[in-house]
Each structure stands twice: as C-alpha cells, then as structure tokens.
C-alpha cells in the first residue's frame, strides 16, 4: 500500500507541476487558439492530478486530502521528473517539453490500461483519449515550428537540444515503481523506452530537426532532487495554503 501511494504521487506530481507551468501561460499565448488549447491540456492534467491524489488519500485513510498532497509537501517530497519543471522559456520550449512528455504519457496510460488495479485501469481509460489529443497538438506544433521559418526552426532545435537530457528520467525506476511492476499494477516503462525514442526521433527527423547527441542524461526529480526552479514554483503554488493553514476555500 505504501508503494502504491508513493507510485501514485510519483505519477501525479508530473501532471501537477506540468499543469502549473502551463497555467502560468494562460492569457499570454501567441494567439487565442493555442492559448485555449494549452489551457485545455492544463485542465486535463489537473483533472488527472485530482483523481490520482484522491485515490492516494483514500488509500492513506488518515484525513489527508488531495489539497494536502498538492500543496503541503516540502520540495524534497515531490517526485516529478525534472522535465516538467523546466521553465516556459519560449513557445518552442513549451511545445518541446510538452511533446516529450505527451509521447511518454500516452505510452504510459496505454500500458496502464492493463493494470491489475481497477481504479488505475479506469484512470488510464479516461486519460488515454486526452493524452492522444495532447500528443497530436504538441506534435503538430513541433512540425510547424521545425518546418516553419528559419527562426522557428532554430528556436525549436535549441529547445530540443536543451530538453533532450531530461527525457531519459521518465523511464527510471524507483523502489515503488519496481514493486508496482512486480505486482502487475504498474507497466514496465523501460520496455517502452526504445519505442518512445523511435517515435520521438522519427518526428524530429521528418521535421528536419537534429537528434541531439547526448552522453549523459539528467536525473534526480524522482528522488526529490529538483532543479532550482522548483522552489519558486512551489513558493507560488503553495502560498495560499501556507499563509492560511487549515482553511476551506
């Protein structure tokens, strides 16, 4: 049970922090249509967050609420990967970060439909259609930027180069995920790693982007060792819950 809770958090923290990052953008998009679409993705992700945290707090059975899990942990207790906390440097970074995550997320939710855990199967079933839509959105934009103007090509190549080092961590196993894989509850994502890179590299190549050559991938998020961005994300996100403890909103 401890492992399942930990696994749920590890999964949902990605959605939370990416949703928070996308939430920063609302009202500041390059045009109304992508602004609306990105907000949609944020909404889907935060919807998933709530379901996962609710399930976790149900398992905890100790009055912990979804909001306690979202807002009242310390930085070292968040288990999201480094990828999702990277900043909204420009639209190219936003799209590349999203695409790198979406391809993973679709593979993940697809595999999670085979989980031995009924609740997780239901969450996966609900999420898979959304994830497919997200991947289509970010993939389409990646193509537009890669094969658009020289400027957009250069910017998106820069984003790909900078964010590539955060992709491998998506597939790292933690003690909890290992236990969940053994129990048939979690899919073994390492087996889908090759498929992931094939898919991503395929899109990059067809859109004339280079695949970065990387000797060393970054990791640490799943162990709660985040980038220095994370503290600022949390300071803002947690502000109300910290400043007004124990209140209902």
């Amino acid at each position: 049970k401890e492992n399942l809770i930990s696994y749920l958090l590890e999964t949902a923290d990605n959605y939370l922090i990416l949703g928070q990052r996308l939430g920063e953008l609302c009202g500041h998009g390059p045009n109304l249509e992508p602004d609306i679409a990105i907000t949609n993705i944020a909404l889907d992700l935060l919807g998933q967050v709530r379901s996962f945290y609710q399930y976790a707090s149900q398992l905890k059975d100790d009055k912990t609420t979804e909001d306690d899990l979202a807002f009242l942990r310390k930085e070292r207790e968040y288990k999201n990967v480094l990828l999702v906390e990277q900043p909204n440097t420009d639209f190219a970074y936003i799209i590349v970060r999203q695409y790198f995550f979406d391809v993973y997320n679709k593979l993940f939710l697809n595999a999670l439909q085979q989980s031995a855990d009924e609740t997780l199967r239901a969450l996966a079933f609900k999420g898979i259609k959304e994830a497919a839509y997200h991947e289509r959105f970010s993939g389409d934009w990646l193509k537009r930027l890669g094969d658009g103007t020289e400027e957009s090509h250069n910017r998106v190549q820069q984003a790909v180069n900078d964010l590539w080092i955060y992709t491998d961590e998506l597939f790292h196993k933690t003690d909890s995920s290992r236990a969940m894989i053994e129990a048939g509850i979690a899919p073994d994502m390492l087996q889908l790693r090759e498929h992931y890179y094939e898919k991503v590299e395929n899109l990059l190549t067809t859109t004339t982007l280079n695949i970065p050559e990387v000797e060393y991938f970054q990791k640490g998020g799943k162990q709660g060792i985040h980038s220095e961005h994370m503290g600022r994300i949390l300071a803002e996100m947690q502000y109300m819950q910290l400043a007004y403890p124990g209140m209902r909103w």
Partner: protein
Amino acid sequence: MEHRDKHLDTTSLEQQFDAKIAADEKIEPKDWMPEKYRKTHIRQISQHAHSEIVGMLPEGNWITRAPSLRRKVALLAKVQDEAGHGLYLYSACETLGISREQLYEDLHSGKAKYSSIFNYPTLTWADIGAIGWLVDGAAIINQVPLCNTSFGPYARAMVRVCKEESFHQRQGYEIMLSLCNGSAEQKQMAQDALNRWWWPSLMMLGPTDAASTHTEQSMKWKLKRKTNDELRQQFIDQTVPQADILGLTIPDNDLKWNEETGHYDFGEIDWEEFWQVVKGHGPMNKSRLDARRNAWENGAWVREAATAYAQKQNERKKQAV
C-alpha cells in the same frame, strides 16, 4: 439622374434595413447596412472582445496561486472561457470586414478601448470571487439584452457568452460564500474585496445617462434596450440582497431601500476616478496593455512559422497532384 437614382437606391435600402430591424429580424454580414451601423458595431463588438481578452489577465494572475485544486481547475476553465468569448466576438467582428490583426493593433495602440474594470489589480484570492460575483454580474446585466440585438453574428455570440457568464457569476458568488462561511480572516478578505470592487462595478454600467453619448441610436439598433442608469439600478437591486446573504456590508453609507420607488437609493459615484481610468491612468492600464502587447510580439515568430508551414504544405499538395 444617375446620382439621383443612387440616392433613391440608398434611401430604399435604408428603409428596408430599418424595417427589418423594426420587425426584429437579424441583419446578417452580407446584408446592406449603413456605414455608421457597421462602424458602431465594429467599435462595440471589438471593445467587447478586447474586454474578454484583457479580462483574462487579472484573473489569470491567480491561477498559479489558487488555494485548492478544485478552485484552480475552475479558475483555469473560467479564464479559458473568456478566451473563447474573445474568439466568438472577434469572429463576429471580422464578418464586418475588419481583420483580427487590425483589431489587435487598435487595442495595442490604445485606440480601441476595453472595460475599465480590468485596470484594477487582483490583490487577494477574494478578488477572484468578487470579480465573478460583481463584475460578471454587471456584465450579464449589460449583455443579456444583446442576445436580441439586431446584428445576427453578435446576437448569436452573446447567447453563448451569456450562458457561460451566469455560470461564472454563480461560481464567483460561491467563492464569496465559502469565504464568508470560513474564518474571520477569510470573511475580512471577502469584505475587503467587496470594498474595492463595488464602485468600479457600478461604473462598469457606463456613465450616467446625462453624460452618455450614442444612446438613442443604440436603442434603435437594439445595441441598448435600457439606459445605463436603469441597468445600474437593476444591478444594485439584484446585488444588495446577495451581499446580505453573505453578511457583507456594501461600502456605501447612502445605500438604503426606498419603499416608494421600490429600489435602493445609493451614493454618488466618483466619476472623476472613472474618467481617469478610462483615460489610461488606472493602476493597471499600462501593465494590462504591456501584457497583451508582449504576448502578441513574443508570439510573432510562432504565427509566422505556422503560416510558413501551411504554405509549404499547400505547395507540397499541389506538387503531389
């Protein structure tokens, strides 16, 4: 002769046009319309669209700090709805023969206006409640009559807008209710928000009838069905009892029920402040326009990329044929 014919022609077109409006039929983009009708509609619809887009900013300011997941999701969805409203309204405006780029340019240059209420800052979470309750409340009162306005695309856009706005208003009121049923600190936060948003909300319903231009023409075209003062009275009459339920005090010492008129009497509005904000001197005028301009300018390369890509795709298709 020719000249005379043309004059006759215009006169008869104008008569048909007036008759259509009188018969409550819709004017559609392809129909003939007087130039003034077109211009007035471009001005009003674009102003309305801009208000939706600029209006995303004060509320967007609290998305990252919403105090619970449920509220965060609701706020994101609300701000997204406003983007959607902007989209309908810009589309309606474009049918009058003006491009979205031109509309944005007029917003960014300060030529076009947007609702002055968005030039106030959102300082606490309670402001999100107060905006939903008061600002959306006043907006609905302004907008419901527009569901029957004479210009078809505008009327249809307003039907969708109004439906969502009432949902937003209920949501805002519900935030206020939670605060007022919460701790003393929360209730004080709600009272403070009411204090700051009350008068600007009254001003949202426009200058007094005496100071208001365009009213007669707008009445005829069903861009207006009641005067600003009537709308304001309606808003006050509707809102005061809601404040009572919350247990909050409206920041107006002159406010009291008038048995004779069946309405609330209320105090003098500080029109000096209103005009200062309209003229661009509100606390957030510069900040709001900067935010819009930055979003647009920083997004230029993205839009160019999308255009370039679409062109390439078209050419490829042609070559493939």
